[in-house]
């Protein structure tokens, strides 16, 4: 399943990017494009809603690292929400769980953001 990415804005200006499908070597460019659009508009606060991501590979993970670098470079902040078991395993295996704070739900990620 090709990755589809929807972006919405909350009332207090946080961008919620919601990819759906496999975030892998085929799908990663779509997430990168969505992040680039958000970063263009100034210091971004971004939640990536991983709830619709069924599977992640190292290239998909690379696109999230790219997002983090772009967003922090623009003085913004990134939070990950709702990763499934496979995504959490990959984050832990690569020790990137130390870099990305992730939250159980989008609502949790938006709290105090």
């Amino acid at each position, binding site marked *: *399943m*090709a990755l589809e990415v929807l972006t919405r804005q909350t009332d207090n200006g946080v961008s919620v990017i919601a990819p759906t499908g*496999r975030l*892998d*070597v*085929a799908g990663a460019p779509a997430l990168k494009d969505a992040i680039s659009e958000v970063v263009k508009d100034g210091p971004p606060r971004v939640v990536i809603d991983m709830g619709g991501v069924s*599977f992640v*590979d*190292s*290239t998909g*993970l*690379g*696109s999230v*690292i*790219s997002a983090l*670098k772009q967003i922090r470079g623009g003085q913004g902040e990134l939070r990950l929400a709702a990763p499934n*078991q*496979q995504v959490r*395993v*990959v984050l832990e*295996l*690569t*020790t*990137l769980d*130390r*870099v990305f704070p992730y939250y159980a739900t989008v609502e949790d990620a938006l709290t105090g953001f």
Partner: protein
Amino acid sequence: MPSPAFSRLGSNQEPFEFHATFAHLEEGLSILHKSVDALRDATGRRFGDRPLMLFETALAEIGGNVLTHGRPPGTKRPIEFDLRCDDGTVVALLSDSGPPAHAHLSNQMPSHTSEAGRGIAMARRLLDELGYERDGEVNRWRLVKKL
């Protein structure tokens, strides 16, 4: 054209076999994931079964590399893929016509800021065995995990 075929031979004690050829990235990745779905069904494992999920993650890493680098321009030979599970051990074989991959086999996990270069290091950690050999002009990969 892909040519996936699998055999479910009647009971969980009998070998599971799946074979496919493919040439394109999204098509190939979909077939790899479908092969694991078929294995899950054939062995009666639940969705989220950890050993199978770890194997699928490794298969997608090596499969993604093979699909990305294994068909240089002008290559006619498709990617060959075989999956077999027997006596609780799953073995995947992938072959491609890409350049030799010896130099990448010992890749270590890169720094947190690196956007690439984790695939083989991840696969090594996820599998019981990651085999590679150069056979003439062909790369042959062997992935083994006890489920």
